């Protein structure tokens, strides 16, 4: 087909660049600068898809984001995307599109039977229908509804495109590049403000591209071009087209998505497809314009029926005639411009005007051109299945509830105009309370909650002169509050056509005894009868009517339907529109791809991870990693086909028998300096630190102010006023914040500095009976005997020309050391330890074995220090100093904390010595008791004891100190297990702690 609806010249397209595309398997051509919609219309294609509910044939009704019908499945290269709006997709080579919601084809759609059965599918039919028999819901109704619901097909393949995010800050964000937008941007920018101008379409100018106006002796489109060039040349201005500001959030933060790539023929490989902008603006000027409203009449949804101004846009911007034999149907003057433009291109039209007359200049011009105008007329019905063929029109009676006569007029298109709806979505999202303007039948912004100002037709200024005045003056005022430059731009003289007022009549009566559908919301197939039904059934709130009928929902968000729907409800309820109110405008204003929202937070960027300097070594030695917060720690080192449990047993047993090495870099390390350091630690820890000798480490416990255990770890005195604190991996940042808080807020008199050195030091724990021998090999000159380097000792030693900090501390309960070197040397330290320990049977061990070792020993960790336990519960009451104060001490005297039968940590062994006890199991006395079965406590950690070769767990149970020897049951509903257990000491191995001191 050869673009038979393209006029021979005119428009803003590049006719030298022909582009082909495929729609429903058929090849068509368009030009560079076309949208899919304009290219389809140029080829005479109006039938785009089928409607959601009734599967009625639908075509393009608008030229921008307000189009509710033109949703297609888009294919480009290997990707596919559903629900793409043909009015927003720019034509590039290689596009293939297919109609949605139809089978087997858009021309013959089996689902079209719904249209003939439409009386059975009124609003809310599914609320009433799928109720019985009950068993049908899961097996019949739900699968059927799921299959029928939704439009288009989402790709199951990963999205191959890149998406970016960008943060930007500006003084003034101008949304929309119509006359008010450009003028305000110019005015603010010339006054020195940092300005961002955003336009959602591929061309700047808005209505100035189609209206026959002059500004300062230039045609509207010429003024746009010059103004945009001027703005682009200014260093304080960012000018963005193809950029939709779709959300307005608190603190003047707005989000915008920019279409960066889809319109390019050969984009560079790393060019993002779309970019999400987070814009923080000191002030926002909303110049989003207004949307033409459809008129409501019987069968007003046929392909070929579109908004009058959109028809003019297709003609003036794209050189496309949406129809060669149109009827123009209006209740206001703006549609006459369309008639005049079509006449200028040789197309005769008939204008039907619901008003009895109009003296506006544009109407007089149309009359003078000989355009056939029929006042006081309406469209009673239309015909034509896949495209409109004729309209049944008639003169309206006095009360406008019927027709005096009806005649049928053949046509190939109907261009409608039911007046204008200001686009107030962004203003409303910002919290602006809208007011109803009865003269124009519109909701307008009223009271700003944030720093935003609405200008132009979005604020009800429908003439060019008003818009320009509004734009230039507001642009200056707002920018001057920020810049104080006082540079005001003069407002150019403009010329435009004269328009009068509209008719407050927009819903045509049906012909006598006919029950045709008159659609209000095209996307959701909501007709006048549906709203009438909702009101009849008692729905009064507009929010309820919306949800019952689906009016204004889905991607369209009621752009063309909201106001007509509100007016209809107000008529039915005999209320004025402001009493009915309006529904909530929520972001996004238009559909946004999930990819845009996610940006680059995929793959490696999905979540930042932390790795130790020895991570590469772990990877090379088959470490299986586990998340410890953001850290990746080796969980175990897999050998052959070992399972996690087998590997953990092997590694733990090797520590018990030989020597093991564990990467402990992730443990928090805090450097503490200052003359009051010892006093500070003495207050922070529950035990005494004032007299800790230099060169010695001490285990300490911290409480929160409420008395709960906060964290534990060892702190070493490196010098008189210098300490090295270690924390658990999980609490490293929290402990540092805790210390900072007390130093800055509670005890500002203490002269102490704390700084995290976690990253400065790579750490290795060397544990096992042969660890001393290994240490001696690493430091042959040093006395590593028990006397020379006792338990809780510290040495700073030279290690291969660098410094090593060596601590004799143990988490495993074995004779053990922790060795730190500066991180750059971490891997070499690790290799050296492995090398020196080879003949001692050294093996690396991961967190799983580490867990086994500490559980056997009864050492507490995060699963016990869970924010709900006090020191007594963890058998750490011996750590509570009676002589000094410390954080949380007073809370410990609370009654609940001093009861005799408080929870206490215990050991748990299954009676059969075989069945592992799932962590989280709860302990009960009687496994067969009915609910609620009194719970004595829970299992906090479980392992397979490598010392005794049977399962062992730690648990925190009520009156634990008196439960030892008792037989209970561990119940795990999740694992469906009931395990008879015996309560034993928490210290299952080496209860006297001889090994660590050996």
């Amino acid at each position: 087909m050869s673009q038979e609806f393209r006029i021979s010249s005119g428009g803003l397209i590049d006719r030298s660049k022909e582009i082909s595309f495929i729609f429903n398997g058929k090849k068509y051509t368009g030009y560079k600068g076309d949208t899919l919609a304009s290219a389809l219309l140029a080829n005479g294609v109006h039938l785009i898809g089928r409607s959601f509910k009734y599967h009625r044939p639908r075509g393009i009704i608008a030229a921008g984001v307000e189009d509710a019908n033109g949703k297609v499945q888009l294919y480009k290269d290997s990707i596919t995307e559903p629900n793409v709006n043909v009015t927003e997709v720019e034509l590039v080579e290689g596009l293939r599109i297919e109609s949605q919601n139809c089978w087997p084809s858009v021309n013959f759609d089996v689902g079209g039977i719904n249209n003939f059965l439409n009386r059975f599918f009124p609003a809310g039919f599914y609320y009433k229908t799928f109720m019985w028999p009950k068993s049908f819901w899961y097996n019949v109704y739900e699968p059927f509804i799921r299959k029928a619901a939704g439009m288009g097909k989402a790709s199951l393949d990963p999205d191959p495109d890149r998406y970016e995010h960008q943060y930007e800050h500006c003084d003034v964000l101008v949304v929309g590049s119509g006359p008010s937008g450009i003028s305000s941007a110019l005015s603010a920018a010339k006054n020195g403000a940092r300005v961002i101008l955003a336009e959602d379409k591929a061309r700047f100018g808005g209505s100035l591209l189609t209206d026959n106006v002059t500004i300062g002796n230039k045609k509207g489109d010429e003024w746009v071009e010059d103004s945009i060039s001027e703005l682009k040349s200014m260093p304080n201005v960012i000018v963005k087209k193809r950029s939709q500001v779709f959300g307005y959030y608190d603190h003047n933060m707005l989000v915008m998505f920019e279409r960066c790539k889809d319109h390019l023929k050969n984009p560079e490989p790393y060019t993002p497809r779309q970019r999400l902008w987070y814009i923080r603006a000191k002030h926002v000027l909303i110049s989003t314009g207004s949307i033409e409203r459809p008129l409501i009449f019987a069968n007003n949804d046929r392909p070929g029926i579109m908004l009058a101004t959109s028809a003019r846009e297709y003609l003036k911007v794209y050189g496309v005639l949406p129809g060669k034999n149109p009827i123009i149907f209006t209740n206001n003057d703006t549609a006459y411009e369309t008639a005049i433009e079509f006449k200028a291109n040789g197309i005769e039209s008939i204008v039907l005007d619901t008003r009895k007359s109009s003296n506006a200049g544009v109407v007089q011009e149309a009359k003078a051109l000989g355009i056939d105008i029929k006042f006081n007329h309406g469209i009673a019905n239309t015909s034509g299945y896949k495209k409109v063929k004729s309209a049944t029109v008639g003169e309206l009676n006095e009360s406008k509830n019927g027709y005096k006569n009806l005649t049928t007029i053949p046509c190939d298109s109907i261009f409608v105009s039911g007046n204008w709806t200001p686009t107030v979505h962004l203003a409303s999202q910002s919290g602006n309370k809208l007011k109803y303007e009865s003269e124009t039948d519109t909701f307008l912004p009223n009271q700003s909650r944030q720093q935003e100002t609405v200008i132009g037709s979005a604020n009800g200024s429908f003439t060019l002169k008003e818009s320009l005045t509004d734009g230039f003056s507001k642009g200056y005022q707002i920018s001057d509050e920020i810049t104080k430059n006082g540079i005001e731009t003069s407002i150019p003289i403009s010329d435009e056509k004269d328009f009068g007022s509209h008719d407050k009549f927009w819903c045509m009566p049906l012909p006598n005894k006919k029950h045709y559908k008159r659609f209000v919301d095209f996307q959701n197939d909501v007709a006048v009868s549906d709203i009438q039904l909702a009101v009849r059934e008692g729905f009064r709130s507009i929010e309820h009517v919306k949800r019952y009928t689906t009016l204004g929902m889905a991607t369209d968000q009621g752009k063309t339907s909201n106001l007509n729907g509100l007016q209809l409800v107000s008529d039915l309820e005999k209320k004025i529109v402001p009493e009915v109110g309006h529904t909530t405008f929520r972001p996004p204003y238009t559909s946004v791809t999930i990819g845009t929202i996610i940006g680059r937070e995929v793959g490696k960027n999905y979540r930042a991870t932390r790795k130790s300097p020895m991570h590469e070594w772990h990877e090379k030695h088959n470490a299986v990693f586990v998340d410890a917060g953001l850290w990746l720690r080796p969980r175990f080192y897999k050998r052959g086909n070992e399972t996690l449990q087998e590997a953990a047993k092997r590694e733990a047993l090797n520590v018990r028998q030989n020597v093991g090495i564990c990467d402990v870099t992730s443990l928090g390390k805090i450097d503490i300096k200052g003359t009051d350091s010892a006093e500070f630690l003495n207050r922070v820890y529950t035990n005494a630190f004032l007299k800790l000798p230099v060169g010695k480490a001490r285990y300490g416990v911290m409480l929160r102010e409420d008395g709960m255990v906060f964290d534990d770890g060892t702190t070493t005195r490196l010098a008189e006023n210098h300490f090295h604190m270690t924390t658990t991996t999980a609490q490293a940042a929290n402990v540092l914040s805790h210390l900072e808080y007390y130093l800055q807020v509670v005890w500002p008199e203490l002269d102490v500095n704390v700084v995290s050195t976690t990253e400065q030091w790579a750490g290795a724990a060397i544990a096992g009976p042969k660890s001393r021998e290994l240490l001696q090999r690493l430091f042959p000159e040093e006395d590593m005997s028990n006397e020379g380097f006792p338990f809780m000792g510290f040495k700073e030693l030279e290690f291969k020309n660098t410094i090593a900090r060596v601590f004799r501390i143990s988490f495993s309960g074995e004779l053990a050391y922790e060795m730190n070197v500066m991180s750059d040397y971490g891997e070499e330290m690790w290799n050296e330890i492995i090398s020196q320990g080879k003949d001692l049977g050294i093996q690396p061990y991961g967190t799983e074995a580490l867990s086994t070792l500490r559980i056997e020993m009864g050492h507490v960790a995060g699963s016990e220090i869970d924010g709900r336990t006090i020191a007594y519960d963890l058998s750490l009451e011996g750590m509570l100093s009676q002589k000094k104060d410390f954080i949380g001490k007073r809370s410990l005297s609370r009654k609940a904390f001093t009861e005799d039968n408080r929870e206490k940590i215990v050991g748990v062994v299954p009676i059969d010595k075989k069945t592992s006890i799932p962590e989280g199991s709860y302990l009960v006395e009687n496994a067969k008791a009915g609910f609620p079965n009194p719970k004595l406590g829970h299992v906090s950690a479980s392992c397979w004891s490598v010392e005794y070769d049977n399962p062992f767990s730690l648990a925190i149970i009520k009156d634990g100190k008196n439960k030892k020897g008792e037989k209970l049951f561990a119940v795990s509903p999740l694992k469906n297990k009931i395990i008879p257990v015996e309560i034993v000491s928490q210290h299952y191995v080496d209860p006297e702690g001889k090994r660590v001191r050996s």
Partner: protein
Amino acid sequence: MSKITPLSNSHELGLHGNCKDKDEANLLVIREVTNIKIYQLSKFKKSNFDINNFSLDGYKLPNESGLSTGNENLRILWQAPNIWMIISYNENIIQEIGKQCSDSDFAITDLSHSRAILEVKGKDALNVIKKGSPLNLNNFRKNNCANSVYHGITVSIDMINDDPITLNIMALRSFAGSFHHAITDASLEFGFNAI
């Protein structure tokens, strides 16, 4: 002992991203900053030391939020009230510091191994930052520094030059891999030369 720098396993040298048909001079240049000394200086509350009496290579400690100072071999960053970070290629900088202030006036902490640092140079350097950090860079100039986040990673950014724009971006060492990926992935759109 041989050193393994934080990014030695991540930083792949050569041209990356949209470099085709571009003048190499217009590409971003990204390198790992290594062999440096980093010290945090934190003045004790009770110290009467006048920071105006302290200078390194003629550069004083900046005492306003967001300011840094120095040259290509030495950077002094304001971190918080009475806290600075000193970054230097001078192996013996600690001796220079020690000559002017004592342990009783400052807590001086060696953090030389605790940071991964990327230098990003080129006209799009700030655009790389804008892709992952909410920082307002409109008035970010030479000798400005800031702490922010980049793709969820805490970073310090120091503009050491503005012609061409040259940024030192620092992250905690453990985040090195993620940090490097976030920065270089963001730079692919502009094209970059990893040196």
